[in-house]
């Protein structure tokens, strides 16, 4: 038996942390206990005309009191529904799902790179990683979660309009500050991931990226969420990997993005 469970979780609190972006704290019985950074959970809607659970990355975990923090953007009906959750209400959650970031104790300095809604999962990763860290966060304009990264590593940010930190993207921030590291952990929009992958290749360092795709089962059964693998995958026997179970974290070289 694995760690995955379906739980009815109580909402501890929820607040808006930026335009359309919500931070939701849930009390869990088992999920938080089992969770590691880079994993995700899936939230079921209470309006049953929406039948599929919504995958949301784990932003933070408090193992002592079993709470889970999720940060998400309202983009459609499901996240809109979640945004109305109030303390003491309940939500059904399945998790923890996916592989999570690897434990690599030997690293001297890691890049922890998040872009947009790829920033939240970096929080628990930054807290979990034991090595030195360059934390590089790329925002459009509005900042969120930034305070919470304080003290977790050397913090660099980029904004599209230069209103804060480096003007441009995370790669611009890395270059402007001439940052160095042995490994990259990244989550964010596809163009950012492509740039990060290219950067890692150029500098010949390991690079872990977290991918997203629409999901139905979230546990590897439906084959709805695959990405293209560079080589024939051992499990699927074709050039596909299931993001929900073999990912969402992949070594960049394993996957075609």
């Amino acid at each position: 038996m694995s760690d995955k469970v379906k739980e009815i979780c109580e909402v501890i609190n929820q607040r808006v942390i930026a335009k359309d972006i919500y931070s939701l704290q849930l009390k869990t019985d088992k999920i938080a206990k089992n969770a590691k950074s880079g994993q995700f959970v899936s939230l079921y809607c209470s309006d049953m005309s929406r039948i599929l659970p919504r995958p949301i990355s784990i932003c933070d975990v408090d193992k002592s009191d079993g709470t889970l923090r999720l940060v998400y953007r309202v983009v459609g009906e499901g996240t809109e529904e979640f945004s109305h959750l109030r303390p003491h209400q309940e939500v059904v959650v399945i998790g923890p799902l996916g592989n999570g970031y690897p434990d690599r104790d030997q690293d001297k300095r890691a890049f922890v790179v998040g872009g947009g809604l790829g920033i939240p999962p970096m929080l628990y990763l930054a807290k979990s990683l034991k090595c030195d860290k360059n934390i590089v966060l790329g925002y459009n304009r509005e900042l969120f979660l930034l305070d919470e990264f304080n003290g977790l590593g050397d913090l660099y940010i980029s904004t599209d309009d230069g209103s804060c930190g480096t003007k441009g993207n995370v790669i611009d921030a890395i270059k402007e500050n001439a940052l160095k590291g042995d490994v990259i952990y990244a989550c964010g929009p596809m163009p950012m991931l492509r740039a990060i992958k290219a950067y890692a290749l150029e500098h010949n360092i390991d690079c872990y990226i977290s991918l997203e795709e629409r999901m139905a089962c979230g546990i590897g059964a439906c084959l709805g969420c695959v990405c293209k693998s560079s080589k024939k995958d051992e499990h699927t026997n074709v050039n596909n990997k299931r993001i929900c179970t073999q990912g969402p974290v992949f070594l960049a070289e394993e996957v075609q993005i």
Partner: protein
Amino acid sequence: MNTQIDIAQVTFKNPIMTASGTFGSGEEYSEFVDLNRLGAVVTKGVSAVPWEGNALPRITETKSGMLNAIGLQNPGADLFIKRDIPFLKKYDTRIIVNVCGHTQKEYLDCIEKLNEADIDMYEINISCPNVEKGGLSFGTDPVLVEQITKNIKKISRRPIIMKLTPNVTDIKEIAKAAENGGADAISLINTITGMKIDVEKRCFELANKTGGLSGPAIHPVAVRMVYEAASVVSIPIIGMGGVATAKDALEMILAGATCVSVGTANFMDPYTTTNIIDGIEDYMKRHNIEDIKSLIGQVK
């Protein structure tokens, strides 16, 4: 109380099965449900050689349903026999392998490989795109259905279930064709072809443009087709389409199904199959039903 069911001399401990393609090879959901409790595990579709499936996105949600265009990605019969069958053999449940192909020959090749493995039954998915006939599925033409059933039956070492597509004018005609071809059972319904459009981007939601609609949305159509098929064939029927509760499963049985498969509802709750089994037992107690077989086709 007896929930045991027989189809073509194969005994199932209860009528609840998984619907092909929604339950992986059983391993994935074994983290949630005890496979020993299921009447059978129907595996994802397997073809003679590995299939890559369709481009992404492959799924999208619709009201009380979803569209999928997985494109029958599968590791091919060889790896499947080597890895997935031994896993399932550890459980006390029946194994039904769903078979797909683009040509009659591909179906037969796949069956020949599977014949060597320890399997209880085959379910033949005839909704696959028929490349010989311009992509329309095998399952929409009664002549072809009878023929392919006969040809598979000739070489199959196991009872065969022909899985029918609902995208037809008259399901009765197709059901009869399968029976005439020698099918041991039929299962229905596969998905109903649908489409969703992203109006902001003005593009198809699925890379494949169309996909198969499944889930609670299609349940009334599935019940109707099971009822219609049951009115014309005497072989057992495995009913599926939007079954999410014991009530839904009982509707299928009352409409004429001997067994019931649970598909999309697994995504809505990984415990759906066992919840349904519990719910059926509860119903039988409340209604003093000794044998579940006495409910089959009993709608008035």
